[in-house]
């Protein structure tokens, strides 16, 4: 049946449907393109809200720069294929992998690479079934929900257990590989986990490794970065850390970092929470006390000094002490 002339395939009726490419020797102003695309707002927000993470920020800047270059190329009529965006985040716990994955979804949506920019965060249990035939529908359901956004697979190395041949994770990996290749325009997959185990996972799944374009390692935070993160967390909860508290906090962080089971930013968050509890206890337990708004907001050094981190010997490794130090 003959198709009526529809937009796109037939000749454009209005002149703004097809832009004439620029002349061969035309020159483009990069700053103007940058201003029009508004990537700077996205990048600046990232700089302010995330502390440290230099390799991550560098990579994101490069992706944003590629977007600008693609726009300039399309003005000259040159083709610009969508870059490969699948990523792998490796690093210790609490270094910001999940946080950055969430931001990545918003970022790529802001840059125009993702249609919706939502994040679907899964682990192995959400992808792998318990019996034959269970895995494929489970994985496909997750993929359907993630389309148009980011699929974040935490602890991805659990997906494929090489030594157990009755493991159904391999089926899930195959479906993922297929979708990562064929639906590259619709979905970005981000894997995350500890570096050594992710390396082993990629060695046994070279197909997965080759589809991941960006392998980003999240370094551990320095003391100064952790102190800055503590400041951000306190400000988020509308608490204030006066000067003497920040000095004590610095000291606390140095001691805490040397102790076992230190989880970077997560430990800092726990420390702030514990300090809030101590502050609350301190304000409420004095008889006949009255509090000002400033007192309600301030975390004093006493709220941190009460921690066991200062009283315990930092060299002693207590392996059977399963209580977390805060």
């Amino acid at each position, binding site marked *: 049946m*003959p198709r009526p002339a529809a937009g796109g395939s037939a000749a454009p009726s209005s002149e703004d449907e097809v832009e004439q490419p620029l002349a061969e020797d035309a020159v483009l102003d990069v700053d103007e393109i940058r201003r029009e695309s508004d990537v700077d707002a996205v990048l600046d927000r990232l700089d302010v809200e995330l502390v440290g993470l230099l390799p991550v920020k560098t990579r994101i800047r490069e992706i944003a720069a590629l977007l600008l270059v693609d726009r300039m190329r399309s003005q000259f009529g040159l083709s610009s294929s969508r870059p490969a965006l699948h990523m792998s985040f490796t690093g210790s716990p609490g270094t910001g992998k999940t946080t950055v994955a969430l931001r990545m979804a918003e970022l790529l949506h802001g840059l125009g690479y993702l249609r919706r920019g939502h994040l679907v965060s899964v682990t192995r249990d959400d992808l792998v079934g318990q019996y034959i035939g269970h895995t494929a529908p489970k994985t496909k359901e997750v993929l359907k929900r993630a389309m148009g956004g980011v699929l974040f697979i935490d602890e991805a190395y659990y997906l494929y257990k090489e030594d157990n041949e009755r493991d159904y994770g391999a089926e899930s990996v195959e479906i993922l590989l297929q979708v990562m290749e064929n639906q590259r325009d619709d979905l970005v997959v981000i894997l995350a986990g500890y570096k050594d185990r992710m390396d082993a996972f990629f060695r046994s799944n070279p197909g997965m490794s080759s589809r991941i374009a960006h392998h980003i390692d999240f370094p551990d935070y320095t003391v100064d970065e952790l102190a800055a993160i503590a400041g951000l967390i306190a400000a988020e909860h509308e608490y204030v850390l006066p000067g003497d508290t920040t000095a004590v906090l610095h000291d606390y962080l140095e001691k805490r970092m040397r102790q076992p089971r230190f989880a970077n930013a997560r430990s800092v968050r726990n420390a702030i929470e514990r300090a809030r509890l101590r502050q609350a206890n301190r304000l409420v337990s004095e008889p006949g006390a009255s509090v000002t708004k400033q007192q309600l907001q301030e975390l004093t050094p006493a709220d941190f000094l009460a921690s066991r981190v200062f009283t315990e010997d930092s060299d002693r490794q207590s392996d059977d002490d399963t209580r977390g130090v805060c």
Partner: protein
Amino acid sequence: MRITQGTFSYLPDLTDEEIKDQLQYCIDNEWSVAVEFTDDPHPRNVYWEMWGLPMFDVPDASGVMLEVAACREAYPVHYVRVSAFDAQLTRQTTALSFLVQRPPEEPGFQLDRQEGPDRTIRYTLRGYASGSPEGQRYGRGEG
């Protein structure tokens, strides 16, 4: 003859891009999208077989297209349609329903006349394809 059931049925077949646009419109309106198939072309056949459940939590059209593609692959010579249900309190009905696949040959309908007492005639439609059992009405596809 091309059956004219559902929206857009008088138009030429929609391309995949156009189907995606329609699906995105349904999702943007917060309608739940479902895929159905049948090989019984009679216009009174309202309840087609469901391909999986309605997709309540799929936020992007490309996710729904995966299901549409899977249904087309499983039933290459059936009618496949997409329906969108509007659950809003004042409506609670199918908001949009259109065909996304037709069999390659659609033989059409026969008008059956039944003579009754006093020379009254009763009319019904019978599809030529309905002469065969289910699954064999439009051939077996690529086998």
